[in-house]
């Protein structure tokens, strides 16, 4: 089909647009990273040996493919530092996502049950932090959490502690930062599903003898699962690769994979190993995505 015919039919163009997008902004860059991950480090600019040269002809290309090595991937498995970074990233992401769900769900539920005109106000309140730069907000947290910061002053004034608590460079500070930053991404999809749900379903459950906690567990929560799934994915995936928040708020004794990647790229100038680490990260993140998609498909099939 010629390009002109595609553009003449907006519906068809709309159908292929996502694939063009994926090709340009995901598959092509992914190809670059994959290529780098298979090459050798070099003291050069850029700091790796090109694996193959497209201008050298077919024979050279074949030789280059034969010489491809997966050494960089072997290194990732053999060196503890990468394994630890992956494990820590996943642990942090799971914990933070759980915290986000625990905090975000009641907020989203409360929003969805507000009178309609107040829902719009609540929505703006959730979104309003985005009007300030993310970095500035994290620096603000450093200010709040430091030795004589706002949080310690309040705790001391309330006599909850007798000495200032050390917050900065701890996991607590990192979790505060992550939960704070990602909360809107948890609240918004949850709110969207909960607001769509008819309150009469909860009335029906309570009419049939369910006390409030059963109404929640048997009706409200199961019906909000699509929102829970979307919120969890929206938070979990970027948190695994999070770099700025752990770098600024957490201690330096254990690194997340994002920080390790950064070190490899910019400090060690080992682009091939960093690329390999990035590809492994992508594969690790594909697993929950695929699981979620299968789950959704099954739910759809059951609904039919």
């Amino acid at each position, binding site marked *: 089909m010629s390009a002109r015919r595609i553009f003449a039919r907006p519906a068809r163009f709309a159908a292929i647009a996502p694939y063009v997008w994926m090709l340009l902004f995901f598959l092509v860059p992914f190809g670059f990273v994959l290529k780098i991950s298979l090459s050798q480090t070099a003291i050069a600019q850029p700091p790796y040996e090109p694996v193959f040269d497209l201008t050298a002809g077919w024979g050279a290309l074949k030789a280059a493919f034969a010489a491809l090595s997966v050494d960089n991937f072997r290194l990732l498995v053999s060196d503890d530092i990468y394994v630890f970074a992956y494990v820590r990233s996943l642990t942090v992401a799971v914990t933070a996502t759980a915290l986000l769900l625990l905090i975000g769900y009641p907020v989203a539920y409360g929003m969805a049950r507000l009178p309609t005109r107040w829902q719009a106000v609540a929505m703006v309140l959730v979104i309003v932090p985005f009007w300030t730069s993310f970095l500035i907000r994290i620096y603000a947290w450093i200010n709040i959490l430091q030795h004589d910061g706002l949080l310690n002053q309040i705790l001391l004034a309330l006599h909850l502690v007798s000495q200032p608590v050390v917050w900065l460079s701890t996991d607590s500070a990192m979790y505060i930062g992550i939960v704070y930053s990602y909360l809107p991404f948890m609240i918004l999809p949850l709110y969207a599903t909960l607001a769509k749900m008819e309150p*009469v379903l909860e009335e029906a*459950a309570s*009419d049939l003898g369910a*006390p409030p906690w059963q109404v929640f567990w048997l*009706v409200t929560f*199961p*019906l909000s699962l699509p929102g829970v799934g979307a919120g969890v994915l929206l938070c979990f995936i970027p948190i695994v690769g999070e770099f700025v928040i752990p770098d600024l708020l957490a201690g330096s004794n254990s690194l997340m994979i994002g920080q390790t990647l950064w070190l490899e790229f910019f400090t060690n100038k080992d682009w091939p190993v960093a690329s390999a680490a990035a590809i492994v990260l992508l594969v690790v993140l594909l697993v929950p995505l695929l699981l979620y998609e299968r789950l959704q498909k099954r739910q759809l099939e059951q609904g039919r």
Partner: protein
Amino acid sequence: MTDELPRTDAAADAVGETQSAASEPLLRIEGVAKTFGTFRAVGGVSLDIKAGEFFALLGPSGCGKTTLLRMLAGFEAPDEGRILLGGKDIAQALPHERPINMMFQNYALFPHLSVRDNIAFGLKRAGMVRADIATRVAEMVALVKLEGLEKRKPDQLSGGQRQRVALARALARRPQLLLLDEPLAALDKKLRESTQGELMELQRRLGMTFIIVTHDQEEAMTMASRIGVMRDGKLAQVASPRELYEAPRSRWIAEFVGDINLFDGESKLRDGHRLVIGTRDAGALVVAEPREPVGAGKFSVAIRPEKVKLSRRGPVSEAGHETAINRLDGVVADICYLGGTTTYKVKLDTGGMIQASVANSARLDVDAYSLDQHVVAWFTPDDCVVLPS
């Protein structure tokens, strides 16, 4: 026929008293009121409902009938008054603590649960054992004729099937009282009519007490043994369908329930049980003395269209002509053929308009009147209801 109607309020009260003395009402609503902000949705309603009754709350939208029902179910707490179920005040009890179940207007089926799990939901909450639940669910599925659909989800069912699941779910716990909120509103006309019959049959067979809320007066008249008409948060009249139709208590009820001809006028003279009322649009009308004796003043004379007979020359040769004191001359102004009946609008020589509903008892239209034909509309004094203006 009119003998079935209580002639006086005193007589009606006497009947009511002997009944309530014999059996305590299942549900007693005492001075219940509910205000939302500044809107008084329900303003002091008192009502007794006996076990085994099929009671209808009828009224236009916004009359407070749904709010009253929601207070019975426990979704709203009344600001004033008591709700006694079997002698126990449940006004402040939570919905899940009441032995009352409700069938919701749009059914409110749980979309994530199968037909079976929807019906079993209430039974599981009651702590019934597994085997008993299975038996009861099967029983309910058979009752509403849903065999074979137990595993389906609500969105795989038709409107009529969903309605049945909702009914089975509400009946499964064998509640002392079943509330039905516009249960047939979402069905098409044919299905609605057959479902009305099934609901009545079911209610009689199970011997349960039903309270239905509806804005459809035909539905209320067909199904209920007693109807409470609500207006502006108050009960305007509580009566059997027949009494409501034949002896409405006010002009508003007369107009709300069915079609009616109304003539405003003043009482002129009294002759035994007869009263002569001079009306502007229909001249002097002779009517029967109303239940509550009335003095002088302004009144409306109300006649149902099917009580108005038409003839070409007046009631000379028709049966019952002796009592047909009210004769009104006019010409046919409008004809509306409805199949079973034809409604004629007759422009009276005295200036008013009267509607007559005539049964099409013969297939060939030998009796039919044509436009602009001169006719006599007549009716007896007993056919008229005198209402305060």
